[in-house]
């Protein structure tokens, strides 16, 4: 046996152990979650449920508040994504193309919203929202969500626009395209992978956001993560499992879609502050 370990080398063994740890910590909770969602009766110490059932799926999908929260969450996520595209893409283009004083400082300032404890930030925003009458409104919730994604929504597309070389835009002008046509046919399509990644990120981030929503949106705007809290405290674990699968599914689907468009290095180049 020892000759075998020596042959494959300690490095390989460590890698293998790390992989095991990875599986235990990442895959097993998900697996447990999946089993729990379909269990009718499952008690310690059995490895699998004594009874399989779809009753919690029926329960979750028939509960009015829950299905409403799913709709609301997707509506908010779509609004947040659309609004931040409208707001951040032109800004990103400006950061990438126009040299103006302090542009680096401005670009860096987007990090500020992530530099402080979130709860502190949300409370101060809530104070402001009270004065503006934005508490318990859809707009208020959307704005809170947008604060979280401004950074990614600006940084990643800025990097994507920077990857479009000025000669590529100039040769399009040269062959007869107007500035608008150049943006539509050359610059935007070339930067699109980065923009798609940032948008997916924004969408998922909004779906997942609970703290700010809880503070600003309660009682009328109860999104999926907020409803999740009450389900976990009021119903058996299986209901929570079903719900978290519903919450996780769009994430997995969108991330798989994103993988088709871009490689990890496009993502990471979004974080370079050139």
């Amino acid at each position, binding site marked *: 046996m020892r000759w075998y370990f020596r042959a494959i080398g300690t490095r390989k063994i460590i890698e293998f152990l790390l992989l095991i740890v990875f599986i235990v910590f990442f895959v097993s909770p998900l697996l447990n979650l999946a089993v729990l969602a379909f269990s009718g009766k499952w008690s310690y110490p059995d490895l699998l449920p004594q009874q399989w059932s779809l009753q919690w799926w029926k329960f979750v999908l028939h509960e009015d508040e829950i299905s409403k929260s799913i709709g609301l969450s997707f509506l908010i996520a779509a609004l947040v994504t659309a609004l931040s595209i409208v707001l951040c893409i032109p800004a990103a283009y400006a950061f990438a193309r126009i040299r103006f004083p302090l542009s680096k400082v401005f670009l860096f300032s987007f990090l500020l919203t992530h530099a402080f404890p979130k709860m502190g930030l949300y409370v101060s925003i809530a104070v402001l929202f009270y004065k503006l009458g934005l508490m318990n409104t859809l707009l208020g919730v959307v704005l809170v969500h947008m604060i979280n994604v401004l950074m990614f929504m600006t940084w990643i597309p800025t990097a994507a626009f920077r990857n479009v*070389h000025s000669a590529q835009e100039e040769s399009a002008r040269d*062959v*007869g395209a107007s500035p608008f046509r150049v943006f539509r046919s050359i610059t935007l399509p070339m930067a699109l992978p980065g923009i798609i990644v940032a948008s997916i990120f924004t969408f998922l981030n909004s779906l997942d956001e609970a703290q700010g929503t809880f503070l600003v949106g309660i009682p009328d705007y109860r999104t999926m993560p907020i409803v999740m809290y009450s389900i976990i405290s009021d119903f058996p674990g299986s209901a929570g499992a079903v719900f978290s699968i519903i919450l996780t599914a769009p994430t997995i689907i969108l991330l798989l879609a994103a993988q088709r468009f871009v490689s990890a290095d496009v993502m990471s180049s979004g974080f370079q502050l050139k």
Partner: protein
Amino acid sequence: MSIQLSIRDLSKRYKTGEGVSGISLDVNKGELITLLGPSGCGKTTVLRSIGGFLEPDSGDILIEGRSVVKLPPEKRPTSMVFQGYNLWPHMTIYDNLAFGLKIRKMPKAEIRSAVEEVLRLVRLPGAEKKYPSQLSGGQQQRIAVARSLLLKPAVLLLDEPFSALDAKLRHEMREELREIQTETGLTMVFVTHDQEEALSLSDRIVVMNHGHIEQIAAPQDIYDAPETLYVAEFIGKMNFLKGGAQGDKLVVGRMEFPNAKHLTGEVVVAVRPEDIILEPGTSQAAGLPGTIKQMMILGHYAEVSIDLGDHGIIRAFQPRDKVKELQLGQSVNATFNKVIAYSNN
């Protein structure tokens, strides 16, 4: 011969202090003219002004007699090939080539046949469905040239288009560009810092330095009769010696040359290495005495360094038969076939 492109007293200053001033140049129809100079001399500024990517501070640019200086690049009858990043990676070669024609609303069938024809001209037939990333650097530049050719521009502008390619490929591309130019009769303005490229490619060369034109002449004339000291130093190899002007004679050591430029006082005398004749021994009446310091054999000729004492060290190209008679440390007498004199100031 009609004038295709005329630049009149063009000036452009950058905040950094660099720029060009007083650039005037007429380019004939069907001519290939090269703007040659070191980086920062303003050659690209002139080219980008013609293309419409820079707005000059003053001066005028006329193409086929019409002022274009107020037009944006897409409205100008010019087309530019850049140093790199010419192609759009998200489009196939066909779409890259057809983009400009589609904007011009050319019928599809005509675009198709035009693209096919131009791909044959740049020796890449059948590349329509490929993406730029599937082509080599040289092939990409050929596609860029092809895209410009398709638009049948009044003037084709080339901004160091081959500088990113390796030496051998650069040589090939030069020949191909020359062929394309003969075939299409296009007027071309070519920017380069590579004098070999300029000499081998051009009908005329514009040597630029610090934002102004030093000399405009045919390649052989630039080499044989550089008008300024700068051009003499910049083009090819050159030796510089001190001399004096006495009436209608130029005196260098014991040699005398005609004073064609009617210079006076001290002058700088320039001699090409191939215009130097070396004879062993020191007994000759004319010429400058010296000793051989170094010999570099370069196959069909050798580069010989000669220490001329007060006149400094000069380099001479010697044919291989001559090299056999010479050896290191030997005393020689150097005479010059031909010199060019410049006033010393």
